């Protein structure tokens, strides 16, 4: 019988991988995929604690997270299309008009 701790550790590793990808990658599409990794890590955490506590609220919250992830994907991919149309590239350091 596996307890919640290995799930939380896995979720932590996956979240940090997503965070590193979010910060270091240059390709906008890969950055969005890293955000999806972080969403999945959060879902693993929610499911693990839902099982641990015997409370279905975690699973309902995970459904909401999946919904928000779908909305984020639609908006992010729309942004990529707009960026490609404007700058003809998906490299994030090419979009530097605001000097960020």
């Amino acid at each position: 019988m596996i307890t919640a701790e290995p799930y939380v550790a896995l979720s932590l590793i996956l979240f940090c991988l997503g965070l590193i990808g979010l910060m270091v990658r240059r390709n906008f599409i890969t950055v969005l995929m890293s955000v999806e990794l972080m969403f999945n890590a959060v879902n693993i955490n929610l499911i693990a604690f839902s099982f641990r506590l015997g409370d279905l609220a975690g699973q309902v919250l995970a459904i909401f997270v999946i919904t928000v992830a779908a909305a984020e994907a639609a908006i992010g991919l729309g942004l990529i299309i707009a960026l490609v149309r404007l700058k003809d590239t998906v490299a994030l350091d090419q979009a530097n008009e605001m000097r960020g």
Partner: protein
Amino acid sequence: MDFLVANIEAIVFYAVAALTIAGGIGVISFKNPVHSALALLGTFVMVAVLFILRHAEFLAAVQVLVYAGGIMVLYLFVIMLSRIKDLRSEQVFLSGVAPLAILGGVLLGALVAVGILLGTMAVGDGGAAAMQAVGDQMPGNTEAVGWVLYTKYLVPFEVVSVVLLVAMIGAIVFGRRDAELVAPGEGVES
């Protein structure tokens, strides 16, 4: 053989967890976005297996249908639509930021790991029964999730539908061909 039967859940968990992490590393390290997307697909399916291990069967189905079926196809379409060949010869990582960011990510991971080790996990025995019960009946996980979702969490459910509507409008506005997209410097002088 007895060892296998007694520890089958642990064996499946650690195998799936290793594949999940491998997929995550693939997502952030593959140079070609198509390869990253396929690694992400593997991660999604493995996370669905983890959901089944934690008796969240409905969410496992949602994970496969929405993530692997919907979001993944959307990503692949956008990768095909945008010209990725331009990027392939250039550098993969943002120069200068990469070592600092990796250090920051690892530090955050270590910090939270220490927090997990020092703090006590939430108490409770939980178990599979609570994941399938509605009242004193046991109709199954889908019915139980639906019951909680449409009674206790009805208002958040409706709010999330507004979020989806806003996202849809935003995606349409970004994707419009006649939208005013003018690069700085070549703007219209009036």
